[in-house]
């Protein structure tokens, strides 16, 4: 049988299957699923827990031994089989098939194989497992699902999030569920339960380096040269990775370029803002910034971003922080950036 992650709680209410195969590439849901099964097992009396790490040269006899030896301290036993790289070979396949032949009701087998590929699921042993027990695959959440999920998570933590909070959180977690959960945990520590406003999030997203990263684009869009420069030097001083700074600048310039393009076509900006998820409170500032930033300048700035990328990747021997400072300054003043220096890139 196949079980989806969001069906798991319901599935576990009606009892446990004799064995579970967990796979998929999303670590948070994977861990959560394992935790739920483990907890359920404990309630069902599987008190002892034996963990087998199936790495290269794993002795598959251990699985059989674990299945057949009676638990010393409790009646029932949970066996966790972890397959690190998803490859179990012929021996492993046979051992698992053999286990599937005679599943013992005193044992609960949980196979954790995060690296399993699609074609591995069509193998004989995987089919056997699916027939006897349950297969649970986890998938990365899509943007909208992630927002809904984070919203739910915030509410479960006792917050009443303002609209847009979950979306902002999802955006900054960059699709990483784990990062999102950690942020929610930290918010729970920093704020009392109750209403959660967007400002709380902006000021206190617990990782303050991240906060300053966005302060850079804010300052640049506002045209505050001194502040932009200050933020940049703080970021550098704190050891923020240059790729992150480039990412946040390039993302902003891409959005501005889209907006400038829309303005040139006399199309409405609200669509651009919607597709780039620009919060309401920033939109006014961006419209002002567009007055000093023509599309041609923004395109040139994007090219500069590409140059910085080359520098960061080691293809050009310039100072990436200096290049980033030039880009931020151009955003502030609206002055066109200096021409790209191909010659220097070759050096």
């Amino acid at each position, binding site marked *: 049988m196949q079980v989806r992650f969001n069906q798991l709680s319901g599935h576990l209410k009606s009892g446990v299957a004799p064995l579970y195969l967990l796979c998929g590439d999303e670590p948070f849901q994977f861990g959560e699923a394992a935790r739920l099964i483990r907890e359920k097992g404990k309630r069902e009396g599987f008190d002892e*827990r034996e963990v087998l790490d199936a790495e290269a040269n794993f002795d598959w006899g251990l699985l059989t031994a674990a299945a057949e030896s009676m638990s010393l301290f409790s009646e029932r036993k949970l066996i966790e089989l972890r397959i690190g790289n998803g490859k179990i070979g012929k021996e492993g396949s046979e051992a698992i098939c053999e286990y599937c032949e005679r599943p013992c009701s005193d044992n609960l087998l949980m196979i954790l194989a995060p690296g399993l590929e699609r074609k591995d699921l069509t193998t004989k042993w995987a089919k056997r497992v699916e027939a006897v027990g349950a297969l649970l695959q986890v998938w990365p959440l899509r943007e909208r699902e992630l927002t809904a999920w984070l919203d739910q998570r915030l509410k479960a933590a006792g917050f009443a999030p303002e609209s847009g909070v979950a979306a902002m959180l999802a955006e900054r977690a960059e699709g990483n569920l784990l990062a999102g959960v950690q942020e929610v*945990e930290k918010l729970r*520590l920093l704020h009392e339960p109750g209403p959660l406003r967007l400002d709380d999030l902006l000021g206190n997203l*617990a990782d303050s380096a991240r906060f300053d990263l966005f302060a850079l684009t804010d300052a640049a869009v506002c045209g505050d040269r001194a502040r932009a420069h200050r933020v940049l030097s*703080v970021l550098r001083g704190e*050891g923020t990775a240059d790729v992150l700074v480039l990412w946040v600048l390039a993302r902003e310039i891409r959005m501005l370029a889209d907006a400038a393009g829309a303005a040139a076509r006399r199309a409405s900006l609200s669509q651009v803002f919607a597709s780039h998820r620009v919060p309401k409170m920033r939109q006014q500032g961006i419209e002002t910034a567009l007055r000093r930033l023509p599309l041609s300048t923004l395109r040139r700035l994007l090219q500069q971003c590409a140059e910085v990328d080359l520098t960061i990747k080691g293809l050009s021997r310039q100072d990436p922080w*200096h290049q980033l400072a*030039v880009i931020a300054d151009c955003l502030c003043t609206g002055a066109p950036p200096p021409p790209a220096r191909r010659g*220097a890139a070759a*050096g």
Partner: protein
Amino acid sequence: MSYQVLARKWRPRAFDDIVGQQHVVRALSNALDRDQLHHAYLFTGTRGVGKTTLARILSKALNCEQGVSSRPCGVCSACQEIDGGRFVDLLEVDAASRTKVDQTRELLDNVPYAPARARFKVYLIDEVHMFSSHSFNALLKTLEEPPPHVKFLLATTDPQKIPVTVLSRCLQFNLRRLLPGEIRDRLEVVLKAEGVDFDAGGLPLLARAADGSMRDALSLLDQAIAFSGGRVAEDEVRAMLGTVSGDLALNILDALAASDGGRILEEVERVAALTPDFPELLRELIALMHRLALIQQVPAILASDDPDHGRLAALAAAMQPEDLQLYYQVALTGQADLPLAPDPRAGFEMVLLRALAFRPAAVPPGKATAAVSPGAAAGSPGPSGQVASMAERRSAGGGVQRPAPGGSVTPVRPLESAAPHAPEAKAPVPAARMAPSPAMLDAAGWQQLMARLPLGGIASQLAHNCGFLELAGGKLMLTLDPAAQHLRVPSAESRLESALAEALGVAVKLEIQVARPREETLAQRRAREAGERQDAAVQALESDPVAQALRDDFEAEWVPGSMRPAD
């Protein structure tokens, strides 16, 4: 009592003492006060920012005999013993020296047993990224089902190396590097408390050299106190730290600002003794010049606590913005040439000397005037004209101007002295460019005039096909080629008339006779010239040896009408 180094003596013992990690301290304090404790924490950050310190304070807060709170009392035996590093229920492990799985298992075997005296058994695992994958697996098993009396505090400089399965079981806090300002303030507090004399100028230097780490800063402070004999003096600190690269770039820029070639070479000599990375030094120089240019425009960019505040401000004031731009440009371009130089030092020196060479030489104001005046007096567009036009371009563009090639002209530096003369020098304009006066108009002048008249369409064709007869009493007699008689349209005539009136400055009345013009008209001349060019082209192709060979060998023929002059 034996001397204890400052870094250990001043290690924070309470959350309030911790500098620069407010976001973490607040979250942890709240967790302790509200009893929202996680069972595992992971602290990440570079060396000397407070990972281990924070973990120790946290274990004190957990085990203080006064109860769990964010303010451990610091006097009870638990707090005292943790500070002294001899508390039985705080197990500090350096993962770097215990990477093997057996050692980890040995350590974790004790997890199920209750703490000996305290509330919680705290495992503080430093440099946890050094664990082997087996060790991580063993740790993970415990982390997944932690007994309630155990807390894990993990610290690492390299969270990337920790498996995501472990990461997802910990609450992760990223400690940031400390800013120079924060370090300097802390050093000041320490020095005041220690009663050590100090110069305010020395501390920013130490803070910068510490590069974001408080422990390094305090160690350096110890060194500085020993070096300067019980006090902290700016000069001594400079001497102790050695010339840091930032200073080298500043020294070079100082010499450049003074346009003193000798000093530049001296500085490079001094730098070379340190065997630096010259391309890197050039990049630093470029970044520095960019900063200076920014400071010139937006003075607020220069923070008052910058260690080089004084020198940067002085340089920004001393250098001309256009010089700075020129040097920046030269250095930027020089980057590309540096790898081509036989050795980096030579390349670096050449870049600096090039910057000086391209800088317009300063000419005393009196001499500049002298250079302009003779030309202006003679009224000929000689060198003075060039000087003036250069001055004009400079003042108009405000940008960098390379000196005109040829070397006959001394570029004038003080724009103010040259600018007033510019109009004078501009006055004489070549006669050819002047508007023709009606009296001077003749057949040749007519053709020149026709070519320049802003006319289009039939009017232009008409003008081109007319020959000049005479101009008298405001009447312009023209002859029109009979072949082009169809061009004589009233509207075209009136347009030609008004265009002529504008060009000549007087109203003229057109009178066109249809007759063969005495001299060839402009249209005829152009047709003739086109024909001549066509003939020349045919001639050239016919006599071309390659074409000749092609024709001989392959019996090639010209496609009729395909030969055209190259223009």
